[in-house]
């Protein structure tokens, strides 16, 4: 096993995907000579040439719209959106075109296209550079939305995303780009499957992308207080691996969902509604949500208080545990 940072694991995954299929084209703003602002495409243009690693004009709708045209021709474009907050100009091309072409054509056209989005906060960035917008795309039928939390997943999931014949929104947790980890040669699960990172009998934490590390840390802290708290990494936000979620919820009876996006209408709401319906009699407490407050992402100076951290997660776990006591 070799170790990679999460960012370089994606670079290597992209390299493998491009070697395996010359219809794979990487495109976006500054992905060529610069290698992207996070250097995720670093070296790819040197190795594959500027017709397969393309610096585009500065227009997100144009990036996705032209990539759709390429995909309709049989290519498999991988588009980079420079920062989460800059995907919105492409929103129509993503939700009305990309997501729908297959169903609009009654299944006769497929658009294998990956949209890579560095996501989330915690890096002290200025406005529009720290957003978590997965809920918009998860609510859009026709898209798949995935989120990687560690180098091994990053390496395999990006390749699985490129191989998928469906459009995939691929989230990369900015503040974890530099996390190191081992990368195994073969993928251990499919793109839409969640991963149980830790079993827990008292409560289970559900997280994705940047908050998985937060959940793991909280779980350790909870152990010191004598609680067994499990951790599930969603990996796929749409579709959700409800089977796995139901199983862990049924076992522990308590669940807390942790994500960076605002809680209101966030993925935590869907999980809570879904799990409550399917595990109503097994739940000892309502599924609780820990997310950002329902404000536009604030200035960096207060982002630590804004984002869910170990303390807020532990607080939610305690609230969850307190329910049955009341009963």
């Amino acid at each position, binding site marked *: 096993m070799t170790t990679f940072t999460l960012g370089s694991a994606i670079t290597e995954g992209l390299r493998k995907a491009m070697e395996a299929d010359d219809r794979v084209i990487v495109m976006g703003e500054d992905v060529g000579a610069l290698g992207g602002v996070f250097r995720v495409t670093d070296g790819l243009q040197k190795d594959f040439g500027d017709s397969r690693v393309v610096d585009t004009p500065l227009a997100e709708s144009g990036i996705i719209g032209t990539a759709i*045209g390429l995909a*309709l*021709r049989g290519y498999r474009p991988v588009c980079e959106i420079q920062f989460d907050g800059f995907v919105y100009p492409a929103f129509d091309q993503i939700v009305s075109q990309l997501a729908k072409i297959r*169903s609009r054509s*009654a299944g006769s056209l497929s658009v294998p296209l990956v949209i890579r989005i560095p996501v989330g906060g915690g890096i002290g960035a200025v406005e529009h550079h720290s957003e978590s917008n997965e809920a918009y795309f998860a609510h859009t039928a026709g898209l798949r939305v995935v989120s990687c939390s560690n180098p091994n997943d990053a390496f395999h999931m990006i390749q699985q995303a490129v191989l998928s014949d469906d459009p995939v929104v691929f989230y990369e947790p900015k503040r974890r780009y530099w996390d190191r980890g081992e990368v195994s040669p073969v993928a251990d699960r499919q793109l*839409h499957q969640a991963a149980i990172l830790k079993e827990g009998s008292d409560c289970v934490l559900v997280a994705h992308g940047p908050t998985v590390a937060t959940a793991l840390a909280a779980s350790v802290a909870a152990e010191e207080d004598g609680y067994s708290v499990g951790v599930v990494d969603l990996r796929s936000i749409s579709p959700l691996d*409800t089977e796995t979620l139901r199983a862990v919820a049924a076992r522990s009876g308590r669940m807390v969902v942790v994500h960076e996006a605002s809680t209101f209408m966030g993925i935590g709401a869907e999980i809570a509604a879904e799990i409550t319906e399917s595990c109503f009699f097994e739940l000892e407490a309502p599924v609780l949500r820990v997310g950002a407050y329902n404000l536009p992402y604030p200035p960096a100076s207060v982002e630590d208080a804004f984002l869910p951290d170990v303390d807020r997660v532990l607080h939610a776990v305690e609230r969850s545990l307190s329910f049955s006591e009341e009963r």
Partner: protein
Amino acid sequence: MSETHRSNLEKWLPNETDREGQPMFQMLAPDGSLTTAGKSIGVDSDLVRGLYRDMVLARRFDREALSLQRQGELSLWLMSWGQEAAQVGSIRALRDSDMVFPSYREHAAALCRGVRPADLMRQWRGLAHSGWNPADHRFHIYSLVLGTQTLHATGYATGAVLEGSDEVVATYFGDGAASQGDVNEAFNWAAAGRLPVLFFCQNNQWAISTPTSTQMQTPLHVRAAGFGLEPYHVDGNDVLAVHTITGLAASRIRDGGGPAMIEAQTYRFGGHSSSDDPKRYRSEEEFDLWTARDPLARVEVFLRTSVVDDSFFAGLELEADELAVSTREACKQLTGQTLAEIFGNVYAEPHPLIERERTANAAFTALVGGDL
């Protein structure tokens, strides 16, 4: 098309001016007489007959579809009435292998590409979101979100360059759509990359109730030139002029001349759609003015006074009647997918939520089939 032939043509354009005094290209005047350019460039009578036939059939089909809508057989219809020359003249000047990304009113162009009347009506009968497989006709499904298809065409053309193919990728859009960011991004993207895209705007003077004057300050072909697209301005109701210009533009693109934009001046004789009442926003005078420029009438005059005899028209009349009948029958026989089938259209790969809801829906349907 040879270099010399091209420059022969080029020296003729523009030769006329439109209502705003904008120079534009014309070969066949509204009265059916050839312009000087028309005379010296010359016309192939077989070609004219063919184009005229395409237009007559397209208009008849369109009229039949509208009456089907009036009788409740279609939920909506967007008429191509009046824009036959712009569509037929352009599509016939392209190779059948050239990919086309239409908007939603390109019925005449679609018919020329062999799209069956039934397939053209499927979407408007509420049975599907599209009617044909683009691969069968090199004609993409309609795009109703204005202007989006111009970016798809631009990306598709990028692929042509990567493969060193000499194809031209054409895309149709309207005067209103030209105000959308996507169309302008496509202009810029295609120009910056010198991609083999032919942008074809049918300027039919209106975007629903909004006149072109509200949309833009300068003629669209002037704007396109500013982006670095090769601009052409043509009488869109003159099928010969449109055919010549499109052939010219396409050959230039094929030879690596970079993307081009054709603005065809035409008119939407009908309402925006079967549910629109144009009397609310435009005058009888304007309608009459454009009726005098009907794209079919002038060709009929030209044909009658020159190359063909009545039997041609009689035969065509008959053919059109048959098309109307078969269109009507085909429309009523159209069937769509069931919701159960539609669950299979959304994703190429297995999707747990879709599977679950497909099952739930089946169970529920069975249930309400019985007593709730």
